[in-house]
C-alpha cells in the first residue's frame, strides 16, 4: 500500500484508504462502464515510491509527510524558557471571513493559533471569543456543522478555566475542520488552515525569542520538515489556487524562510535570523488579515 500523502486527522495508510473510498468510486464506475468489452482497467492508487530513512541501522518505509505540531506544543516550551507575557501577544482586532475561500482558510488557521495564545494567557473571555470566531469562519467555508459541538466545548472549558481541555479541544477543532474540508474535496484549503496556524505560531515564537534572544530559544525555529511540507503542499496545489495572489505571496516568502530555519553545517539561528523571520511572518499575517479585519 502506498504511504499517505497527507497526515492529518488520521494519517498514514488510513488516509489513503479513505481517499480511495471517497474518490475511487465515481471514476471507477466511469472507467468500467466506458471501457470496451474485455479491456483491462488498471486502477491507479497514486503516489510515488516511498522515501526511506537515511539511517543505516533502521531502514523503513517512510510516511511521506510530517505530523504538523499544534502551536501549543512550542508555546509550552516558550513558557518554560521565557515565561512570556502572553496577554501582550494576543492579537487586537476581529478577523472576519473573506470572499476568497483560500484567504478565509488561512485566517481560520491563524485564529485557532490565537486560541493557543489565549490559553497560555489564561484569558477566558478571549478563548470564548475565539471559540465563536472559529465557528463563524468555519461556516464561511462550509464546514460549520462539523465544529459546532467543538466550539461549544471550547467555550465551556474556557468558562471552567480547564486550560488543558481547551488546548485539546482547539486541536480537535482543527482536525474536525480539516476532515470536513477533505470530505468536501477541499483538501488543499485544509492545508491552508494548517499553514495559517503555522505562520501565526511562527510570528509569536519569533516575537518571544527575538525579545529575549537565547540560542535555546532560537533553536525552536529549527523546523526543516515543516517548511518542506508546506512548500510541497503549495507546489502541488491546482493552478487556480497557485494563481491566488495571497497564496503566491506566501509561496515566495516560504522560499525566503527555508534557508533560515534549515541551517546547515551546524550554523545556529542568529538573533538577526529571528528578526528576519519575525518580519516575514508578520508581513504575511498582515497580508492574510488585511481584507478581513
Amino acid at each position: 500500500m502506498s504511504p499517505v500523502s497527507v497526515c492529518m486527522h488520521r494519517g498514514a495508510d488510513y488516509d489513503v484508504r479513505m481517499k480511495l473510498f471517497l474518490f475511487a468510486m465515481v471514476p471507477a464506475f466511469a472507467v468500467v462502464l466506458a471501457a470496451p468489452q474485455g479491456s483491462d482497467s488498471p486502477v491507479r492508487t497514486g503516489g510515488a515510491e516511498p522515501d526511506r530513512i537515511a539511517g543505516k541501522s533502521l531502514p523503513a518505509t517512510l510516511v511521506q509527510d510530517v505530523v504538523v505540531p499544534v502551536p501549543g506544543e512550542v508555546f509550552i516550551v516558550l513558557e518554560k524558557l521565557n515565561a512570556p507575557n502572553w496577554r501582550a501577544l494576543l492579537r487586537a482586532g476581529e478577523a472576519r471571513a473573506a470572499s476568497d475561500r483560500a484567504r478565509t482558510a488561512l485566517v481560520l488557521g491563524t485564529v485557532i493559533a490565537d486560541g493557543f495564545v489565549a490559553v497560555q494567557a489564561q484569558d477566558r473571555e478571549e478563548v470564548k471569543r475565539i471559540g465563536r470566531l472559529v465557528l463563524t469562519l468555519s461556516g464561511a467555508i462550509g464546514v460549520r456543522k462539523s465544529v459546532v459541538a467543538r466550539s461549544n466545548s471550547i467555550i465551556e472549558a474556557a468558562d471552567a478555566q480547564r486550560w488543558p481541555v481547551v488546548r485539546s479541544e482547539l486541536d480537535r477543532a482543527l482536525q474536525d475542520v480539516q476532515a470536513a474540508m477533505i470530505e468536501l474535496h477541499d483538501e488543499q484549503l485544509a492545508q491552508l488552515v494548517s499553514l495559517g496556524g503555522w505562520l501565526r505560531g511562527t510570528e509569536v515564537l519569533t516575537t518571544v525569542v527575538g525579545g529575549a534572544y537565547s540560542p535555546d530559544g532560537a533553536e525552536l525555529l529549527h523546523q526543516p520538515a515543516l517548511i518542506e511540507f508546506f512548500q510541497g503542499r503549495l507546489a502541488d496545489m491546482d493552478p487556480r489556487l497557485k494563481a491566488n495572489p495571497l497564496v503566491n505571496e506566501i509561496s515566495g516568502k516560504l522560499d525566503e524562510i527555508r534557508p533560515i530555519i534549515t541551517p546547515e553545517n551546524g550554523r545556529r539561528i542568529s538573533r538577526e535570523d529571528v528578526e528576519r523571520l519575525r518580519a516575514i511572518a508578520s508581513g504575511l499575517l498582515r497580508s492574510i488579515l488585511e481584507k478581513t479585519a
Partner: protein
Amino acid sequence: MNAWIPRQIGRAVWLFATVTLGPMTALGTVDDAISYALEAATKYIREGYTVREDQSGGDLAVGERRAIRYQLFKGNEYWFWGATDVEGAKFHLRVVDAKGNALESERWERGVAAGIRVLPPTTGTYYVVIEVLRSPEERTGWAVVYGFR
C-alpha cells in the same frame, strides 16, 4: 450493445465491492488500533500530557516497518503510544533521529500496546518507527498517537 451492458454492470458491481468493502474492513481495524493507543494514553492525561488528535495508522505484514515523521521541540517531554488490533501480534516501536540513532528514556509494552517516552536532545525532525515482529494475521492493523507536556 444490449449484451454488453449487463456484463459491464456486473464488472461495476464487482469493482464497487472491491473498492468499498476492502477499505471499510481495514478502516475498522485501524479504528480499533487507534482506540487501544488512545486508551494507553489516558492515564498520561492526568499527568499533564496533551494528547494530539493527529493519529497515524495503517496495516503491515510481518517484517514490514513504517516510519512517521515528527517535528519535536527540545524542552518538551513526549510520549508515543502504539497499538495493534490483533491479539497475539507483537510489534516494536522505536523513535530515531534523522541519522537513525535510537532515542528513548523510558518504554513499556503491555498486551496490544506499547509506549515510549522521549526527551528530544535538539529541536528538529524525528521518526517513530513501527515494525510488526509476528502476527497470526496476514495484515496487522496499527496506530500511533502522541502527547506532550
